[in-house]
């Protein structure tokens, strides 16, 4: 059934998926839901379901991803009279974007079996940056759906304001980092291509497009000279550094990505971090790479980049390890492992933390006896056992 704007239908299902299909182009659009009382306001912040609060405590509304919301009508709390399903453009004003830039927008209601119950194509918008796509509301003890399609200026902040949510800066935008460490998109000066971090320094990666893109973390180190002769090959093998990370996801899951134990990770599934094949010979010019799928930055809480020496002496000075963090649109961040003398074979190099829609990167370079000791220092809480590769 194709709905016209303002058309209302009875909902005979318990479980519904509401999918907002569109060609977004460069726009970063996200869906959200507001569970409203009869006053038209939420009862509390927990009644705002969005990427930062993906499941209502009642289980009635779940933000599945940026284009679908799941509703369980049997679970809606008594104080809720209406659920407004919205779409907003992230940083619309800063980026001078609005809903005139999308095409092919269709809202699809699907039932338990994924079969389409109704579709609704909202009219074309012009200057709007937020849309109430539809509303689910109580009517004579049952639930109905209204094809609202109403546009607003002012983005998510305006909707929140309307619906009684106090907007903090963290909710709509990443907190502004200290000025000397920021490199914003509309800066007046030339953006540096590379930044070498000092110990303890933190900078934010710049989100250029609708997502962060692929973040590549490269570890490279000095190889032994190649012309040292037959015996030299044995005497001077250099050291083999393994690149690895600990991760913690927003939903509390945590783990490690490392060659040890074949925990190579995945870019498309949790943890959205993957390790390229281990270069055990140290022959490869490029060193080792960890990749983070920037599309899923919202799912990741923090990532600790570390390295360990699997075999050989802890000769950090000879290795002269360098970690480079590359992210499309951001300057390359260089973290030099420039502290030597530690006998310890594990080194925490850099910490990436979710600061809204992007990561901050902090130089750590701290040495530990093993991964377990490092884990404890950062309160990661994994179970460590001895592994081999």
């Amino acid at each position: 059934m194709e709905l016209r704007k303002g058309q209302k239908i009875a909902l005979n299902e318990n479980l519904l998926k509401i999918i907002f299909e569109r060609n977004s182009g460069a726009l970063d659009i996200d869906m959200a839901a507001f569970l409203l009382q009869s006053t038209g306001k939420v009862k509390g912040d927990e009644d705002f379901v969005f990427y930062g609060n993906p499941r209502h405590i009642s289980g009635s509304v779940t933000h599945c991803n940026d284009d679908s919301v799941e509703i369980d009508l049997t679970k809606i709390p008594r104080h809720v009279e209406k659920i407004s399903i919205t779409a907003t453009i992230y940083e619309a004003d800063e980026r001078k974007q609005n809903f005139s830039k999308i095409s092919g927008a269709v809202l699809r209601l699907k039932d338990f079996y994924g079969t389409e119950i109704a579709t609704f194509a909202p009219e074309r918008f012009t200057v709007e940056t937020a849309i109430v796509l539809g509303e689910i509301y109580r009517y004579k003890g049952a639930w109905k759906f209204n094809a609202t399609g109403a546009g607003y200026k002012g983005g998510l902040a305006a909707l929140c304001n309307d619906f009684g949510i106090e907007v903090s800066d963290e909710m709509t935008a990443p907190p502004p980092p200290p000025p000397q460490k920021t490199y914003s998109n509309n800066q007046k000066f030339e953006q540096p291509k590379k930044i070498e971090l000092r110990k303890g320094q933190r900078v934010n990666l710049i989100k250029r497009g609708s997502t962060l893109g692929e973040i590549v973390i490269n570890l490279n180190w000095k190889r032994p000279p190649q012309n040292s002769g037959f015996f030299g090959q044995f005497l001077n093998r250099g050291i083999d550094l393994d690149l690895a990370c600990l991760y913690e996801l927003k939903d509390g899951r945590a783990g490690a990505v490392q060659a040890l134990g074949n925990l190579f990770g995945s870019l498309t599934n949790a943890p959205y971090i993957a390790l390229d094949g281990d270069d055990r010979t140290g022959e490869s010019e490029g060193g080792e790479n960890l990749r983070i799928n920037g599309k899923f930055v919202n799912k990741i809480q923090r990532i600790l980049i570390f390295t360990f020496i699997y075999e050989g002496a802890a000769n950090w000075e000879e290795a002269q390890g360098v970690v480079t963090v590359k992210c499309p649109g951001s300057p390359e961040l260089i973290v030099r492992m420039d502290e030597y003398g530690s006998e310890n074979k594990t080194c925490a190099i850099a910490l990436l933390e979710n600061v809204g829609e992007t990561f901050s990167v902090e130089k750590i370079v701290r040495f530990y006896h093993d991964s377990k000791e490092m884990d404890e220092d950062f309160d990661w809480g994994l179970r460590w056992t001895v592994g081999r590769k």
Partner: protein
Amino acid sequence: MAVSLRKGQKVELTKGNPSLKKILIGLGWDTNKYDGGSDFDLDAAAFLLAGNGKVTSDDDFVFYNNLKHKGGSVEHMGDNLTGAGEGDDEEIKIDLEKVPANIEKIDFTVTIYDADARKQTFGQVSNAYIRVVDDTTQQELIRYDLGEDFSVETAVVVGEIYRHNGEWKFNAIGSGWSGGLAALGRNYGVNV
């Protein structure tokens, strides 16, 4: 050679294949290598549904605690607690001729046991599939790979067999929900 189905596709099972009396439903999946502190336990189940899409009694819900439907038409071959190994992780056998006349369709679901407490979702499950095998000849008839569409879901309606003009058909559903087995059960009229 088995027919490979896309989401939403419906195909004939018994029409043109009158010798097909007993089928085996094989369900398989892989879970993320790192266990995050808890094991993954996925459970397959079958819901025997009347024309209104609901069960008639709790017995129509065949799962690890009710392995065999009365009359023996549907039998769950038992719970695999780890999902390890090649091939089907769980299997359900159906004797089509013994399915009671009031049963219009049988839905097959896979749910993550204790998903909320263990913080596990189908986002961490890969290579999930359902296949239909002729249990007499062991020939694989149908296969449906669920793909990578899932994120926060903890329960998936994988597929169903249903009666149509006196024959049985198969429907590749692949519809995921975040409320676990309880949400599916409520929808089917079972108190889970």
